[in-house]
């Protein structure tokens, strides 16, 4: 995550350019709406400046201006009590809880399965092609069904969404860890054999440490996937709240500002999770010597 000093100016420029484009697009997209509103109100004495300012401050714009999204986020994060259902903190925490539970379960299962695959020969040859194929399948399509099936067993609330988050993070983690456990070179494996190391010892002393870079890469992908899973699951079962429910409610009632705020909250959550894993990666990398 370390950004070279030389890159700061370009990044700032790009961010400013994005903001400028955003404002221009918001003004252009909202102006027709605002013009209609003026026409309905019987006003025709407005200047272009009035039109632009009004377009950027509509209550239900097609595209809210960045300042409106920021204002909505401040309002729903800082100014609203976290226990209120109007608070993004409330919904964000629900999503975070589902994501984390799901991610931990998915990661544990994924790493476990990867360990089994690299050590059991026949499982490897029969299971690996399916795992690879599973990467090409939109497994998220199963999300609504899993929610319903679990509710048949009276499993509701956080659990179904965590299950989907786990399910989504499971596959990429398994595939990544299999690659990681396989990453030692034949030469190194031969060395272990000359030491007459048992397969457990080979695993603990060679395969597991060698997989560390793959571990962190798959953790990042898995965490992002778990968050997507939690959000999509919340869309399919929205009465329990969460950022996905916020998105759906916003789209039902045309509350665009609310959608954008929820979207940015989700983005921040994802970036924070991935950033946190990146931080651990750098610390571990420095200790284990794989950091560049």
């Amino acid at each position, binding site marked *: 995550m370390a950004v070279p000093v030389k890159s700061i100016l370009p990044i700032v420029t790009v961010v400013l350019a994005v903001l400028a484009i955003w404002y221009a697009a918001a003004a252009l997209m909202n102006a027709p709406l605002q013009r209609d509103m003026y026409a309905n109100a019987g006003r025709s004495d407005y200047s272009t400046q009035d039109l632009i300012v009004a377009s950027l401050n509509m209550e239900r714009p097609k595209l809210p201006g960045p300042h409106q999204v920021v204002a909505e986020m401040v309002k729903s994060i800082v100014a609203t009590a976290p226990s209120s259902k109007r608070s993004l903190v409330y919904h964000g925490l629900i999503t975070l809880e589902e994501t984390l539970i799901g991610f931990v379960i998915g990661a544990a299962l994924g790493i476990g399965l990867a360990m089994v695959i690299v050590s059991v020969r026949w499982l490897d040859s029969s299971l690996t092609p*399916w795992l690879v194929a599973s990467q090409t399948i939109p497994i998220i399509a199963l999300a609504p069904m899993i929610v*319903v099936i679990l509710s048949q067993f009276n499993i509701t609330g956080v659990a179904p969404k965590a299950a989907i988050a786990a399910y989504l993070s499971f596959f990429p983690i398994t595939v990544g860890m299999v690659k990681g456990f396989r990453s030692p070179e034949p030469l190194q494996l031969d060395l272990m054999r000359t030491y007459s190391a048992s397969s457990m010892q080979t695993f603990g002393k060679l395969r597991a440490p060698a997989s560390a870079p793959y571990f962190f890469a798959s953790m990042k992908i898995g965490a992002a996937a778990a968050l997507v899973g939690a959000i999509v699951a919340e869309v399919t079962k929205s009465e329990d709240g969460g950022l996905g429910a916020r998105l759906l409610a916003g789209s039902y009632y045309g509350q665009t500002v609310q959608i*954008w705020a929820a979207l940015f909250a989700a983005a921040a959550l994802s970036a924070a999770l991935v950033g946190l894993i990146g931080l651990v990666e750098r610390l571990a990398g420095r200790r284990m010597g794989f950091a560049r």
Partner: protein
Amino acid sequence: MIDRRLADLVPPFLFGLVILALWELVVRAAGVPTIILPAPSAIAARFLVSIPTLAADFWQTIKGLLAGYIVGCGSGLVVAILVDRSDFLRRGLLPMGNLVSALPIVGIAPIMVMWFGFDWPSKAAVVVVMTFFPMLVNTVAGLESASPMERDLMKTYGASDWQTLTALRLPAALPFIFNALKVNTTLAMIGAIVAEFFGTPIVGMGFRISTEVGHLGIDMVWATILVAAVTGSAFYGLVAAIERRVTFWHPSFRAKGA
């Protein structure tokens, strides 16, 4: 060579069969209600009966998916080539592209439905945004991958920037570009299906899944998922096959041990 590859396919094929047989057996023996898990035979029966519906859903979803995939990947490629001309832009855009690639972009689905209506263009728009950034990041990395020695050679030939790009750097970037194309097949499927959860005319795979789940037609959900799975794998397989033809020179495709 062909025989070896066929032989490699036997264990996974058998494994799949065993799983299906076990599934059928458990569902029948334990009398699992269809609402929880229909037997594979029930899913197959439902599939055969509902082919017209499933085909209509498939075409509806594939329209948005393909349009979005082509526009998203195409624009990602073009922007990457433009960005590549300026070190300043590359430094500014790349961290941003990497950041955006990790975000839950499917969340923009409700916004796109609002902007572009219920029909397939809104799904295409979601797919465009989802596929654009992986393509951008990968292509920019790929264009860097030609070695300095090769570039120097182009310089001694007196090649123009354009010639260096088309004769050296773009071909060298192809493995990266295909990597993005493959990743994007899955992302495009996800985008097209999830976007339909947020509103669609009464047809489409995502729509079918969410409504059938609503009135507990779980066998129909499985039939649709079967279509989605086959479509996803076929799409990926197609791109991978093209990759084999186009980047046959790459070490990972040279005949192993031959």
